[in-house]
């Protein structure tokens, strides 16, 4: 569903992502793991089209979107949930959801997002800026779902959340696979990510150092070597 080949990112003269290759099938969850500064966020931003210095091939459901600006890539089926539970703080919960709304096969709409996150329904008229971190993360994921994406890119969705919330959020991300969406999950919290991932890609210094099935990655020496655990 998501095929990335030869992705390179340059910031001015410095080359930060090198010939990256990633494939995520529909209904599959690929965990992108690595230390802080390994290039996970830059990789995601390159895929969604936010970096002018990115080159390489990005395909969504077989369609080459490499030359498209970010908004067109989003419409082609990529939903991006940036780190920090980013929402539009001056917009209401409902407006935050509606802004990304697009029709699609998965049939996500406001009602279904509220079924998934009942807490948000009670806050529907509230400004997003006044929500707690966990609520804003739900809203960020809900907004991504409203676009009925083929591919979801999540950047550190558990960062800064209370352990209980982390748990249920990761479980939920695992369940989203069943709707057929391809998920690329960048996480520092490798234990949580590996619980729901099918495969894991380990990043180091802007390169993919290793790709393994998640079952093998749990407790493997790769964790030790690359993540320094």
């Amino acid at each position: 569903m998501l095929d990335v080949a030869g992705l390179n990112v340059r910031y001015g003269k410095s080359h930060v992502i090198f010939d990256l290759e990633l494939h995520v099938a529909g209904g599959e969850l690929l965990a992108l793991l690595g230390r802080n500064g390994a290039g996970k966020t830059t990789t995601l931003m390159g895929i969604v089209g936010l970096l002018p210095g990115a080159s390489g091939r990005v395909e969504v459901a077989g369609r080459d979107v490499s030359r498209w600006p970010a908004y067109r890539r989003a419409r082609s089926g990529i939903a991006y949930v940036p780190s920090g539970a980013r929402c539009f703080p001056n917009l209401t919960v409902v407006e935050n959801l509606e802004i990304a709304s697009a029709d699609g096969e998965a049939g996500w709409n406001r009602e279904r997002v509220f079924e998934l996150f009942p807490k948000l329904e009670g806050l529907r008229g509230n400004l997003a800026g006044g929500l707690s971190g966990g609520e804003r993360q739900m809203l960020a994921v809900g907004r991504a779902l409203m676009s009925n994406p083929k591919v979801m890119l999540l950047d550190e969705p558990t960062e800064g959340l209370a352990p209980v919330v982390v748990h249920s959020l990761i479980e939920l991300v695992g369940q989203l696979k069943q709707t057929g969406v391809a998920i690329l999950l960048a996480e520092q919290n490798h234990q949580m990510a590996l619980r729901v991932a099918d495969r894991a890609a380990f990043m180091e210094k802007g390169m993919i150092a290793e790709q393994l099935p998640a079952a093998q990655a749990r407790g493997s020496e790769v964790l030790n070597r690359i993540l320094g655990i």
Partner: protein
Amino acid sequence: MSPGQLLLFAVGGLATAAYLFIVTAGLSLVFGALRIINMAHGSLYMIAAFVTVVVANRLGASFGFWTGLLLAVMLTGVIGAVIEILVLRRIYKEEHLVQLLGTYALSLVAAGAVRLFFGASYRTVRPPDIVSGSLNIGGFRYSGYAVFMIASAVLIAIGVYLLLYRTALGRNIRAAVSDPELLNVSGVNVSRLYTTVFVIGAGLAALGGAIVAPSQAVGASMDTDVLVLAFAISVIGGLGSIVGTAVGALIVGEVISFGLNNQYTNQFAIAFVFIIMAAVLTVRPWGLFGRPEQEL
């Protein structure tokens, strides 16, 4: 001062506040979404005033004014789109000084073009018949056109509010104010949205210019005259806030009206505006209704 006089001056102040609100709302909207202080905003207002006067005097009677107003808004909207696409897009990422110089350069080009096309002399136009009469209340004569200006400003304020809070376009504009990058990855063409916002801002400048034209002499210095007051209003009310713009315009309009109508202060009525502005800057640099600028 008798109560009747008080009311007369207050209505005069409201009429001044009316056109200043329309113009400043455009400036504020553009700043809120695009983070650009448009030094050429007064130029768009001036161009619209000249177009309205020329068209209205050519076609005559009432019909001429309304046609002039419509043409002025359309022409200014087109100029706005061209400016946004050719100039502003290249300077969004630059520092404030470059943006100020860029739009200031545009205002100089516009000033030159206006002198070239319309000459340096002042022009006037009669208000359209339907609003040219006067009302007699308590022995004082109120100009019908002043009432028309106030009504226009109220309608435009409601229109801007409905646009911002009741339409998808307005929701996207408000989203662009807080996080354009997130808006972009949510599937909204932010470049096109910026053009639309600038065209709306230019349209508001044009409406202000067209509406003010029958109430004062239209000349080649009205670009800076209005820009200075619009900045004062923005500073007092808070740049980027529509409510603040309305309150700021009311304060400035009334201060000018009462200042001009008092024999001791009419020489320096405008000075009071800047004294208030300086006071607000000292106590609340982000304005009465604005928010302190923060880095996202």
